[in-house]
């Protein structure tokens, strides 16, 4: 990896019931993620994705690029806007710097042309790095 290289984009379309499975898996049962009526009552278009699910997709793109879970040492994201089930998420990233075996990737996630995670930065340590 060298500065300017793009990491392999990751595209995933969370299915209709994903937010229910993620709520169970993560322990976050906020009704805005799992109850269509409740979500609409509080002014949302409908049930929205958990931000941390979307962040997990950003993380997955990094660990896929870095060669495994051990490669990801740091990830920071800002959540902007809302992700929706049944619409494709696309994670992209570009190598910003490589220093002493530490690769910094500037990345983000968009859905339908909207950047729902922006200013994300990942730090990878590659397995074959010194």
């Amino acid at each position, binding site marked *: 990896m060298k500065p300017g290289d793009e990491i392999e984009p990751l595209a995933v379309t969370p299915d209709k019931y994903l937010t229910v499975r993620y709520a169970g898996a993560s322990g976050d049962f906020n009704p805005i993620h799992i109850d269509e009526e409740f979500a609409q009552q509080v002014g949302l278009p409908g049930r929205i994705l958990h931000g941390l699910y979307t962040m*997990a997709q950003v993380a997955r793109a990094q660990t896929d690029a870095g060669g495994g879970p051990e490669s990801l040492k740091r990830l920071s994201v800002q959540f902007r806007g809302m992700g929706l089930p049944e619409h494709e998420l696309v994670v992209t990233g570009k190598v910003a710097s490589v220093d002493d075996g530490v690769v910094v990737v500037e990345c983000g996630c968009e859905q339908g042309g909207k950047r729902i995670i922006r200013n994300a930065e990942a730090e990878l340590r590659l397995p074959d790095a010194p």
Partner: protein
Amino acid sequence: MGINTGVIGKTYPPAEYSVGREKIREYAFAVGETNPLHLDVAAAREAGHADVVAPPMFAVVYSFPALWPVLFDPEVGIDFSRMVHGGQEFTWGPLVIAGDEITTTVRVADITERAGNGFYVFASESVNARGETVCSGRWSNIVRGA
């Protein structure tokens, strides 16, 4: 309502979490992980791990029990109906493996008010039974009209 900056620095009792093999698999399936290290005990052992490996973002699962007390602390005074998750940062140490016992401590790192909104930052630190920090988290929440 206003913000209470007097609570900055407050810490909460540590919360313990026992990492289970099936919980890792359930989480890995939910987020679409395909790496066999998270799903297949034999593959994980072949790679030198005692059991399946937690994906990095599994930090959410073992940290959450420590977060609830601060989110519901009346002294912090968060109005959930106005709260949005603004940002998140995790820094990872050694891998978490099924069978690990993780202890997480949470501290109120910062509270500020800007343009009528409250910005709350909580810091979590998760440690395994060997005393190694497996994950540090910074959880940034925005309460509109705080």
